[in-house]
């Protein structure tokens, strides 16, 4: 096992604050003015703009969630009408899925980190990257427009016939908005695939890439293969709404279930667009913060690709009760089980990495450990739902709601926030308050479990999802769940405050606050405009034996004297 010099107790990176103005040449101060941001080709600025958009959307989507939970605190009307309630749970879902989780890791963190991890100046097609961002902004504006034009209450899934029959004015704008967001996602994925193929630095073979890049790569494959199907589906729904074609209307000879097939052919893989990058982040966080070589590198890498492939073969498990044939149901159920294998491979490898590691419980690491716990619950309950006969009982109950929140929020979003804390010092050159970070995590973690574990119980007792009103026997669970959501909100509020505070008052971040080994920790924080003056050569990015704590830097440094032997050799590593 690896032993490394660690800081003395109580001594954390960037503490005490280093004086001065930080690195003179950095991407934040490279040029000035709003236009230099909006039309920048710098992947780091584009990443930061995505991050801003995603976090604002997260705030909005979170407020919608609080409205929904507050309405559900007691049976009957609490403070909004049923129609308004339908609109808010729809808005919550649509905003969180399309504007927050899907772009959260690939578009914001991925854009910032991927080229730097590759030692490259930028992604392969910087202009296309900017275009993706502009498309994202336009898609987001259409979603806002949909709100102004009367909102929509179709559920985020736009199931027909609700979506073709409802008279709310926002349906067409939001369909168009999501259509455009889809293009943004496709172009980002395309850009990342080409970047990973063509721009790896000397010495970085496929099996020496940081695992985050493997995850982003597998995600990008899904983005370019599945998202086009969503585009054509939404276009057909739009046509259907405008002209009553009848393709999804049984009365006119069409088939509403065809919509579900098409929708889930995209949206099930989209679930992996959300979770895979988070798994990639966790792989890196676990290794860096336990200062230990990642266990089972190639298994983790291959399992990302395996999950990407499986993702295309399981969409039918959303439709067990939609009138699919028994044969199809059985096949989809069986393939769904097989997703558990690559997922479990990752979890076991993370645990094996932790074993005998020198674990630093920094805020990013807390989120990583929280991820493992929550993802395990989310994943295991997925097996319940993938089991045909159990699903017939649990379908469309709160059990499903709890399950996908454990995966989408407890895993994907927690992974994003862990990654955000991990790369925050790199992005902005400032350290946040570590104590506040840990308190924030504890609040979010407790609040999350109080909110959603309760919903497993609600669901298994038969409470249907999306209902406005419920029987008195469910009241106590709904009350607990709502209280949990307030605790979570307090945690996120605290997080927002200390992160914003750090931008102005935070200690200067060293180049390498956590002891990371991949390339992004080898340029200054924040990185210079060109990332690296010369393309660096790389060795094993999980070999932490050369990393040591430096008292002068208030951060970690890589011991060049020990580095030579580890970076030699052109073999495939493992």
């Amino acid at each position, binding site marked *: 096992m690896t032993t490394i010099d660690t800081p003395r107790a109580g001594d954390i990176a960037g503490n005490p604050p280093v004086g001065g103005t930080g690195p003179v040449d950095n991407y934040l101060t490279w040029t000035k003015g709003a236009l230099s941001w909006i039309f920048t080709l710098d992947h780091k600025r584009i990443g930061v703009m995505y991050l801003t958009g995603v976090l604002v959307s997260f705030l909005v989507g979170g407020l919608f969630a609080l409205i929904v939970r507050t309405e559900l605190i007691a049976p009957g009307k609490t403070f909004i009408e049923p129609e308004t309630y339908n609109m808010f749970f729809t808005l919550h879902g649509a905003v969180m899925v399309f504007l927050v989780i899907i772009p959260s890791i690939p578009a914001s963190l991925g854009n910032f980190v991927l080229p730097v991890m590759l030692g490259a100046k930028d992604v392969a097609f910087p*202009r296309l990257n900017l275009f993706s961002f502009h498309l994202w902004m336009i898609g987001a504006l259409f979603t806002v427009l949909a709100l102004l034009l009367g909102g929509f209450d179709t559920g985020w899934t736009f199931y027909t016939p609700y979506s073709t029959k409802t008279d709310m004015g926002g349906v067409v704008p939001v369909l168009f908005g999501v259509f455009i967001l889809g293009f943004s996602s*496709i172009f980002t994925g*395309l850009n990342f695939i080409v970047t990973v193929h063509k721009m790896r630095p000397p010495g970085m073979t496929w099996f020496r890439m940081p695992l985050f890049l493997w995850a982003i790569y597998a995600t990008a494959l899904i983005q370019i293969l599945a998202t086009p199907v969503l585009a*054509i589906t939404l276009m057909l729904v739009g046509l259907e709404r405008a002209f009553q074609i009848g393709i999804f209307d049984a009365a006119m*000879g*069409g088939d509403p279930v065809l919509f579900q097939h098409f929708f889930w052919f995209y949206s099930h893989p989209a679930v992996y667009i959300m979770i895979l990058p988070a798994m990639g982040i966790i792989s890196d966080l676990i290794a860096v913060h336990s200062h230990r070589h990642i266990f089972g590198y190639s298994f983790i890498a291959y399992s990302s690709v395996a999950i990407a492939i499986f993702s295309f073969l399981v969409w039918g498990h959303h439709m067990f009760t939609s009138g699919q044939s028994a044969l199809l149901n059985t096949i989809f159920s069986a393939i769904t089980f097989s997703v558990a294998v690559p997922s479990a491979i990752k979890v076991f490898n993370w645990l094996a990495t932790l074993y005998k590691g020198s674990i630093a419980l920094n805020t990013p690491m807390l989120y990583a450990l929280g991820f493992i716990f929550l993802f395990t619950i989310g994943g295991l309950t997925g097996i319940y739902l993938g089991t045909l006969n159990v699903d017939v009982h649990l379908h469309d109950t709160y059990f499903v709601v709890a399950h996908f929140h454990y995966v989408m929020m407890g895993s994907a979003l927690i992974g994003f926030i862990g990654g955000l804390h991990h790369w925050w010092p790199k992005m902005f050159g400032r350290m946040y308050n570590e104590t506040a970070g840990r308190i924030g995590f504890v609040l979010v973690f407790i609040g999350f479990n109080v909110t959603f574990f309760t919903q497993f119980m609600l669901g298994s007792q038969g409470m249907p999802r999306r209902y406005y009103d419920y029987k008195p026997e469910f009241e106590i669970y709904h009350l607990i769940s709502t209280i949990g959501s307030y605790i979570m909100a307090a945690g996120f509020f605290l997080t927002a405050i200390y992160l914003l505070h750090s931008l102005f008052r935070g200690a200067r971040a060293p180049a390498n606050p956590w002891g990371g080994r991949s390339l992004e920790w080898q340029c200054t924080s924040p990185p210079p405009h060109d990332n690296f003056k010369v393309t660096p050569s790389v060795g094993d990015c999980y070999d932490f034996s050369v990393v040591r704590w430096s008292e002068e830097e208030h951060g970690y440094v890589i011991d060049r004297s020990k580095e030579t032997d580890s970076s030699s050799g052109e073999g495939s590593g493992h």
Partner: protein
Amino acid sequence: MPVVTDSPISDQRTRLDAGRLGMLLFLLSLGMVFGATIIAYVVVRLQLVAENNWKPDDSPDFPWLLLLSTVLLLSSSATMHAAVSSARRGRPGRTVGGWMSVTCVLVLAFLVSQVVVWTDLALSNLVFDESLYAWMFYILTGLHALHVLFGLPPLALTTRSAWRGRYGPDPVSRPGLWHCSAYWHFLDGVWVVLFLVLAWGTRG
């Protein structure tokens, strides 16, 4: 001639390969769009045929004018290829540009033939709100025509550059021509599949 570029890739050959890979991925993505639409067509047809409700009695059969469209589009692919290979052999700009111009004309003729087919069908009772039989036909051909339409501006720009002699034997000198021809061959291939599917689908 030095090319002004925003690309972070300094090696020209690698930059060319990156562009090509990007184009192939884009076409893969587009292929999913057409694939999904064709599957929708097939599913709807199979279900309606089973219900004996697919083709309204008075609706026209497969419009054989589409054969002409096929010939036009296939020829445009061939002339596009001729443009690329004459550039590769170092022929002067007017040869490459000439082939490209012929391609433009053939593509425009293809679009005209599509409009004629649609008008004919609309006039012969195959109107929009009548049946899925009509709608699916218009959606499938319309989606393809839309992509041909989107391809026209780049095609025109590439033709202009060809006349100006921009495209030489070195592949690095003609990424635009490569991208344009890849897109065109792709749309051509998609059309052939569409044609066969429609020929099968419009039988009673």
